[in-house]
């Protein structure tokens, strides 16, 4: 609801507004640059601010409350600033990709290379889980192998910009890169395994009968978008995505802040530490039915890590929450038999399990 209101708030552009005019363009660039400088300034001074404000309020610097409050005051604006920047950039990048192009790139690919490409395209192709069914049918009926289609469907929600930003902001770029690489690997390998199992018989039979209209490939004139249009897409993505996830992020960081301030250090080492071998499967089992977006879960995971949870366990938990969601499986039930959905969930869960153990062993 919020995002709808937000989208209506700025005055709608008229045609003459989007037409290239040098003065308008200069003004827009200046605004953009100004915003960037302002954001950088805020970002640089957050640490100072998060200590200054509680002191100013007369709170005891050593108390649990101050510790929680400082954590929140530092993390919440930082993550939101990063999120706005990255979602904007990703919005622009996505304007260069359409599902049609992705399908053309994937059709008729050999499996191994196709899985890699599909997982990568999953990151940049605009995709919402409501579109999972038409996309699935459009892919498999035009020569994209089943396993390659799955690689795409696994990677698209799992390796998303919101998850990467949160990981980057809260854990640093190394963990974000690790998540990116392992997420892509899980998508690639799981898709490949599903392809090797030749499970086409578990796709609902009407799917292959539904001859997809090739129709006009793109009636949206995506090919000749101007830069102002692409920037507009970035802006729309910020309003849409950030407008949707900010309450989750704030709630997640608030819970994380509570854990940070009040839970004793190493409290979780016993149950979520490296030595508890069963913690990885339990984390995955808890994570699968939980359908939260990355936004809500990652700040909590950060606080858990700080209190002694092992990285592999935390990563496995995060991936299973984000990648395997019940609503998406229910949507896919329209095109897949229940057996194939179970295989899909099982293969992905197994992949996540391996990732979890691997990290607990290596790090």
């Amino acid at each position, binding site marked *: 609801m919020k995002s709808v209101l937000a989208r209506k708030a700025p005055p709608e*552009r008229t045609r003459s507004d989007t037409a290239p005019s040098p003065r308008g363009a200069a003004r827009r660039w200046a605004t953009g640059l100004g915003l960037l400088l302002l954001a950088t300034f805020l970002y640089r001074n957050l640490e100072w601010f998060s200590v200054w404000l509680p002191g100013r309020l007369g709170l005891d610097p050593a108390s649990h409350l101050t510790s929680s409050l400082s954590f929140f005051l530092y993390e919440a604006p930082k993550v939101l600033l990063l999120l706005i920047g990255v979602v904007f950039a990703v919005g622009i990048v996505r304007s260069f990709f359409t599902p049609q192009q992705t399908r053309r790139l994937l059709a008729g690919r050999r499996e191994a290379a196709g899985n890699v490409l599909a997982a990568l395209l999953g990151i940049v192709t605009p995709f919402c889980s409501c579109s999972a069914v038409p996309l699935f049918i459009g892919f498999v009926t035009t020569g994209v192998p089943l396993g390659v289609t799955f690689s795409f469907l696994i990677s698209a929600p799992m390796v998303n910009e919101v998850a990467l930003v949160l990981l980057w902001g809260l854990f640093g770029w190394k963990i974000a890169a690790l998540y990116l690489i392992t997420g892509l690997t899980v998508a690639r390998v799981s898709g490949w395994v599903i392809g090797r199992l030749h499970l086409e018989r578990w796709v609902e039979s009407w799917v292959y009968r539904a001859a997809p209209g090739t129709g006009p490939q793109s009636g949206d004139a995506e090919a000749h978008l101007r830069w102002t249009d692409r920037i507009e*897409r970035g802006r729309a993505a910020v309003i849409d995505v950030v407008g949707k996830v900010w309450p989750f992020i704030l709630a997640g960081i608030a819970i994380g802040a509570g854990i940070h301030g009040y839970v004793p250090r190493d409290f979780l080492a016993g149950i979520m530490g490296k030595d508890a071998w069963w913690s990885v499967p339990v984390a995955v089992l808890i994570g699968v039915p939980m359908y939260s977006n990355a936004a809500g879960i990652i700040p909590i995971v950060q606080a858990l890590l700080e209190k002694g949870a092992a990285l592999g366990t935390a990563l496995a938990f995060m991936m299973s929450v984000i990648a395997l969601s019940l609503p998406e499986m229910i949507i896919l039930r329209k095109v897949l038999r229940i057996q194939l959905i179970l295989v899909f969930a099982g293969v992905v869960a197994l992949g996540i399990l391996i990732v979890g153990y691997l990290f607990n062993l290596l790090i």
Partner: protein
Amino acid sequence: MSTVQVLGPGCKNCQILYERTQQATQEIGLSCQIEKITDMETIVGLGVLSTPALVVDGALRLQGRVPTVEQLKEILA
């Protein structure tokens, strides 16, 4: 009299597109019939890969995103 079809399984984005299409046609005074299509086979049959999508007089004009009312007016005009 033209036919405008809004395609999508009925999630929030499709609903928004439907409402904006109604608003856009009213504002430019286009007399048309706006149809909502939720049947998956029909949607796929029209070559749609991502929803929501907009079909005007049988031609697919937009898919996979929710445009503003102004953008819709340009498309429908």
